């Protein structure tokens, strides 16, 4: 039983890690505070669930669950051409709320508030991923690939341009950088990997409802990235472990399960506030959050 508990935790940590490292690429590295990042996760989860329930092969569903959020990320990029900084963030928040409501009200396609049930777990090359051990290996493998890809971006000269855009967009343009193109690429990459994380989530829990779009989940992702430190992949990895492990303590306390959920969000918000106030660079970041 304890093995199942640990493997379950490994799967969730991997999924959150992939989502958070992607968010760190757009927010920490490039300065795009995209509050619709969680919508990419939801879009990936729903795309995968809808396709899997209609018998689409898993790998195709996985690919499309990455590609679908990219379309929406591209639309968001167009918004960013006109709206900068806080205005862009507000637009992404509006996008997150809008996508949540669309999913909530498209009852025929998404099941509305009841969500989608009995999402099949993948069978790949004859391997049945109902086996939690196999699913954990698969999830960790995809997460490591995603993290390695983002590490390559962050350490490349392209990653340096992203940092430059975050620091001073106008100066980057005056040095000849096409900042719009770079932001589009960053949002596309982040949305693809987050969509894949959404697919991994939907296939694992086999049930999703519109709460996967919940803006409150952004607090968890924000807490991970801010705790780890902006633009630090190592920080995001450590941050994911800390943020996901801390609430596990609550399980061993005599608290009603109805309270655990809100308590978790409260705890994350508290961590976020403490870090911003006392350690604005987070654990491994070089840049203070402003």
């Amino acid at each position, binding site marked *: 039983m304890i093995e199942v508990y640990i493997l379950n935790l490994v799967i969730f940590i991997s999924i959150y890690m992939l989502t958070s490292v992607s968010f760190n690429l757009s927010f920490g590295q490039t300065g795009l505070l995209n509050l619709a990042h969680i919508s990419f996760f939801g879009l990936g989860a729903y795309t995968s669930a809808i396709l899997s329930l209609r018998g689409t092969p898993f790998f195709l569903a996985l690919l499309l669950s990455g590609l679908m959020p990219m379309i929406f990320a591209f639309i968001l990029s167009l918004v960013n051409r006109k709206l900068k900084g806080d205005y862009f963030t507000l637009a992404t928040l509006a996008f997150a709320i809008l996508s949540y409501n669309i999913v909530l009200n498209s009852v025929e396609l998404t099941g509305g508030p009841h969500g989608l049930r009995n999402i099949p777990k993948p069978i790949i090359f004859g391997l049945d991923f109902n086996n939690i051990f196999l699913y954990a290996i698969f999830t960790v493998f995809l997460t490591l690939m995603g993290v390695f*890809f983002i590490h*390559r*971006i962050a350490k*490349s*000269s*392209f990653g*340096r*341009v992203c*940092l*430059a855009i*975050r*620091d*001073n967009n*106008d*100066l*980057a*343009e*005056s*040095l*000849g*950088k*096409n*900042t719009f*193109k*770079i932001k589009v*690429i960053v949002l596309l990459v982040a949305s693809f990997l987050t969509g894949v994380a959404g697919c991994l989530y939907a296939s694992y829990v086999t049930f999703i409802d519109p709460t996967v779009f919940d803006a409150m989940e952004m607090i968890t992702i924000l807490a991970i990235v801010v705790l780890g430190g902006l633009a630090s992949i190592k920080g995001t990895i450590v941050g994911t472990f800390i943020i996901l492990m801390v609430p596990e303590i609550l399980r061993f306390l005599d608290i009603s399960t109805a309270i655990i959920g809100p308590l978790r969000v409260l705890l994350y918000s508290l961590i976020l506030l403490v870090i911003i106030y006392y350690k604005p660079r987070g654990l491994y970041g*070089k*840049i203070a959050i402003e």
Partner: protein
Amino acid sequence: MVKSQSNDIISIENVSKSFGGHLVLDNCSLKVRRNNITAIVGPNGSGKTTLFNVICGSIKPDSGDIYLDEKNIKTLSVNRISNMGVSRIFQQSSFFPNLSIAQNLLLAIDDEDTKFVKNIICAEPLKDKEKIITDTLRLLGIKVNLEHLPHELSFGQQRIIEIARSLIKPHKIIIMDEPVSGLSPAMKKNMKNLFLQLKKNKETLFLAEHDINFVNKIADRIVLIDKGRIILDTTPKKIKNKSLFAKIYLGE
């Protein structure tokens, strides 16, 4: 037949710009010559920085045309104009504050770093780039710790690093907005020698400056702007005799 290169690198023709009904540039026409130092002087609010912004593409003119090497650039974006060879130094020291001096300079070398796939697959030719940086800093006679952050340098050092950045960037012309403003007399003297060195190297500079003595020592041409209009276009030798210049600029 090969077309001979024009002597003018930038040609501004009848450019006007107003903000909220206030005319900031009034039918400005001006040519900036290749391999020359052209200085534009004028009181605060006369339109110098706006003129630079219009050339660099961050502000679009209401009317008129701007040519860079005979190509009309008035509708082009800032990054495209920059990649066509316009380097710029801003009035306020401008850096990427969380990046080291080395990283700040590396960003100026080319725009290959914006190519996503290439940069993910191939390694960056860092040694070649570092050589460009060390050679340029040697030319400017400045020694700084390249791993420092910009705010760890003195104001004078920051200004020289900005000049280094504009030289490292592939350029045809460098536009400088008050490059010696706020510097100590000793530092200004160093900067004067630096500009004379750049002049010797046949750099094309177009700068705005308030310090007339400094401008007189380094510029080939001096242009006087007032209330958005080009009033005078002359040489440093002649300028001392121009009563109009004294009246507008020095208030005499």
